[in-house]
Each structure stands twice: as C-alpha cells, then as structure tokens.
C-alpha cells in the first residue's frame, strides 16, 4: 500500500511500473484466471490509495541504518529479527537491533520540529517539549536495557498462532541514552489518581492514515522506575529510523511494544490505558492455563507485564563442527524481565545432565547478563547445546514450549544449537 506522495521508504516507482505491466497468462485455467484478474469488491477499496497488487522480495537497503544480515519477516510493515550469533556482543550493535513495526515509519522526520506532549486525565497540566528542551531541561541517563518482543519465539507454538512468526531473535540489549520518563512526568505533575501511561507515536497506519497504529503503555509504577527512559540515542548514536528516530520510550523487561517509537505524546491516565493494541488479544494472555488451540474470550485475557526468564547461545553459531577431543567455549546472554538471572546451566545430552556456567552480574537493572563455559564433546556424533537460565525467584526456563496462548506470546523454551564432533 502506498499513500500518495508520502512513504519514502516504500517500493520504487520502477518496480511499480513493472508490476502494472504484468499480463494475464495464467496457467491455472479460466476459473482461476477470472477470479484472479478481478478485484470484485473494488468499490469498497479506500480512495486516494494506490494499489500495488504484487509484493516481491525487496531491497534490504530500504531499512536505513540496518544491516542486511537481519532476517526480514515482512517489509510492509518492516519486521526483522537478529540472527542469534549476532547477539554475541554485550551491547547489541545498532545495525543489528531487531525491528518490529505495526505500521510505516514516519517520513521526513525533522528533529528540529519534533514535539513531545505530556497530557492526560492525571496530568496536572499539558506541556509540549521540543527535542532541544527535553535535552536541556532534564538530566541525561544511559542504561543497558533488554527489550524483547512479546511474540519472540512465536514460531514454535503448536498449533500455529497468528502474527509474525518470530524465531528467537526479536530481542536485544543496547545502551540507550535519554531522560528519565519520571523526571519529565514529575515536571508536568502526576496526580494521585494516576494509574497508567499511554504513548502515541508518529508511525502511519498501512491503510488508513486516520487510524492509530499502536498506543500501548505501562502502569505508573513501571513508568516511574529510574531506568524507564525517553531516549534519543542507542549505543551513543542517533536512533535509526526503524528503531524510532528521533525519540522513543525504552522500558526494559516488558514486551518491547510498551517502548513506543517515534514518540509524540504521553498521556497520564487515571485508568488502564485503552489505546490500540492494549485490548482484545493483543499482548494479552489467558488468566488461566488453556489447552493448545483453545478459543479464549477477551475478558479472560490479561495484559502481559514482565517478560519471563530466557537465554540464548550466541557462540558458537549453530552448526559448528569440532575436531576430536577439542574443547571450545560456549557462551551467550540471559535475562529475566523485571528480575535478574541467578544461574545458567547447559546440557549437551538433551537435558540428562546439566553443567553450571559462569555468569556476570548485569551492568544495571534490565540489562542482560553474559554466561559462558568450556566444553569437550565426549565422542564423535551429533549434539545439541541447550541453555537454561534460572531467575532470581528460582523460576527456570522450560525445555519444551511453555503453555500455549492464542497469540503465541512468552515462549521462553530453552534455546538449542546443533554441534558435531567429527
């Protein structure tokens, strides 16, 4: 879908031209040809929108500032995950940080003219800040914050749940810089009846420009934590457009969808925020365990808070073949939402025996932790390295996919890589 004269990240004109020039030579016969050729209810199609009609694989350079090593799940909207071995550094490189969009990024962002408005039922007043004012009025803070898409690892749920079929790479932990959300909220004034914050961004709906793409938020308590940031920088660089340039929320430990991008407005609410993707099945899971495939009424769903304990094997890359008797390092990341990780174990015998790894303490709250160990495979053959983290409350990652839920959230099953001794 291309909104006339707007999206500069969309598909090129020449590609559109070639699409228009496709001719009918269907091999599927008259029936399919007829059905295929006509858009029967085209009068219901919104005006002022130019149909493209045919989607192809697109140039990855259309995501400015992002690496072509990312695995692209969708280009309209842009969604891309990080191959796991690229999550090996303590701070995820900016170009490798995953991208999850519900709509199109705003075009022609002008940071000089960017405004952030704080308002809402529980705001003492309404104040609009320019980017410059935000940067000059409030103290700057940097934190390493892990953000993970609520649907990360969705692809493993059975039966299949709808949505982007993420592998394990919709997660990252980078150094984010900005001002504390609580400093800005307190400056404006938070009334005693405040319950929630809700954000609004400048992203554009794929179809209808009047629609809000996504507007989520967190309880006021979570918003007021020291590490909840209104950020303009990742790893000391400007945010890439796809990661929210020029301004976004970064709220570690919760589904990344609470960390609103292209931030233009925050409402301090006197009730649970009811913005787009706060209700229904979005970012919500059943209040009680359900059998796989169960249809769950909306009123039996609750909003996801902290993400569960999880870990990744970032080295070696899956598929390593190792010479006889050679030892090698195995390492990775571990995180636990609002909590920290207490222990990480690995198994090379499909969970029969577990070996405790060394584990770093987090740089700050909500930063992921690094674990490592050295192993030697006992004999020739196929092995899997399984990693299993335990959080500070003693909760452990399951070895199989955890309880099914209608939208496939919160899969924290232990990560596995394949290795062979020759």
């Amino acid at each position, binding site marked *: 879908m291309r909104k006339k004269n707007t999206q500069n990240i969309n598909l090129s004109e020449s590609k559109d031209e070639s699409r228009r020039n496709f001719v009918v030579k269907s091999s599927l016969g008259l029936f399919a040809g007829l059905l295929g050729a006509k858009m029967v209810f085209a009068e219901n199609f919104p005006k002022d929108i130019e149909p493209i009609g045919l989607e192809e694989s697109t140039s990855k350079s259309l995501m400015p500032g992002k690496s072509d090593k990312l695995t692209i799940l969708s280009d309209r909207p842009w969604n891309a995950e990080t191959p796991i071995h690229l999550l090996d550094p303590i701070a995820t490189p900016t170009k490798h940080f995953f991208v999850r969009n519900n709509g199109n990024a705003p075009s022609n962002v002008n940071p000089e003219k960017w405004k952030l408005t704080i308002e809402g039922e529980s705001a003492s007043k309404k104040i609009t800040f320019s980017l410059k004012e935000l940067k000059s009025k409030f103290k700057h803070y940097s934190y390493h914050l892990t953000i993970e898409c609520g649907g990360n690892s969705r692809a493993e749920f*059975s039966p299949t749940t709808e949505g982007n079929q993420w592998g394990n790479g919709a997660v990252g932990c980078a150094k984010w810089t900005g001002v504390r959300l609580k400093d800005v909220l307190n400056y404006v004034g938070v009334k005693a009846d405040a319950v929630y914050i809700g954000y609004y961004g400048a992203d554009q709906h794929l179809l209808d420009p009047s*629609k809000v793409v996504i507007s989520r938020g967190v309880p006021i308590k979570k918003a007021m934590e020291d590490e909840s940031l209104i950020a303009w920088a990742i790893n000391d660089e400007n945010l890439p457009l796809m990661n929210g340039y020029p301004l976004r929320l970064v709220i570690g430990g919760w589904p990344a969808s609470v960390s609103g991008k292209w931030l233009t407005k925050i409402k301090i609410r006197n009730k649970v925020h009811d913005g787009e993707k706060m209700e229904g099945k979005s970012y919500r899971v059943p209040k009680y365990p359900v059998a796989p495939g169960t249809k769950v009424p909306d009123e039996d769903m609750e909003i996801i808070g902290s993400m569960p304990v999880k870990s990744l094997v970032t080295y070696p890359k899956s598929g390593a073949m190792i010479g006889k008797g050679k030892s*090698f390092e195995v390492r990775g990341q571990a995180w636990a939402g609002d909590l920290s990780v207490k222990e990480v174990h690995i198994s090379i015998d499909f969970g029969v025996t577990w070996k405790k790894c060394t584990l770093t303490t987090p740089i700050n709250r909500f930063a992921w932790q690094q674990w490592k160990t050295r192993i030697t495979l006992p004999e020739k053959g196929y092995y899997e390295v399984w990693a299993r983290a335990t959080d500070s409350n003693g909760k452990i990652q399951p070895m199989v996919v955890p309880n099914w839920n209608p939208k496939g959230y919160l899969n924290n099953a232990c990560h596995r890589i394949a290795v062979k001794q020759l």
Partner: protein
Amino acid sequence: MGEKEDRINQLLKLARLSINFSLTLIASGILVSVLILYPPSFDKTSSIHPANVSSTEFSVDSTEIKNGIHVPSGLIADKGFELVLKTCAQCHSIEVVKQNRATKQGWKDMIVWMQKTQGLWDLGIDEVPILEYLSKNYSPKNTGRRKNLENIEWYYLKD
C-alpha cells in the same frame, strides 16, 4: 494397502474430481453471469488506479510459476492465489500471509479482525475462494511441544 483398496481410492478420487469439475463449471457460469450483469462495478476501480489500466494488471505470468510456487511472491500457486496476492498485498507484505497458518475459521477470524480494526473492506464473493485457498495451502502445522532443529548450516569451528 491392498490392490482392491487402491482401486476404490482411485474411483473415489475420480468421483471427487468430476464433482469438483462440475462445481467449477457451475461457479464459472455464475461468475460469468455476475460479470455480465454488473460490469459497471469494475469500471469504478479505474478511479483508484492512477494509471487507469485494466484490473488485469493484477494477474501473473505463468512463466513465473516454478515447482508449484509463484516465484515473485513465494505463494503456493494453487487455485485462487492471484486473488490472495492482489487482495492481501494491497495493504501489507505477502510475507505476513505466507508465514501464518490457520484453519478456515482461523483465517476468517483474521479477516474479521482486519475488517473491524484495520480498515479492510468487505471482500464480497472473493472471501470464499480466499478462505479456501488459505485454509488448504496454509493450514496449521502440528509440531508438538518441540521439534527437531532444522536448516542447520554446518561449518568448521576455528578456535
């Protein structure tokens, strides 16, 4: 399986094929009548096609179908895929369709959700063939609680 059962299965297949064929003919007939009766509805499409080309622009070249896959989109080239391609790819990447799997009811629920919240229009008589295609070619996979690791790219680990 015994020879007798094979023969019965073959006969059943033949019967199913001929029923399908008759249904196809009837449906084609209905469709042609609809096309003859209501041609003006198609003319309206020109208002949203800036190039003012005919709606046949949405069809595909058969040379682009290889091994049962429509190569440019990656869709399974089964009956109705052009309709899915031109309908769904109006608003979002066809990848969004390809990576999902659902029952007919599941796909219907997604369409209803898109109509309720995302501005998808009434698909009219297109809805049935779209649902048929999706539920047949992109049905849910049962992979159990954990499946084997797949697509492993083996390499020598240098230390």
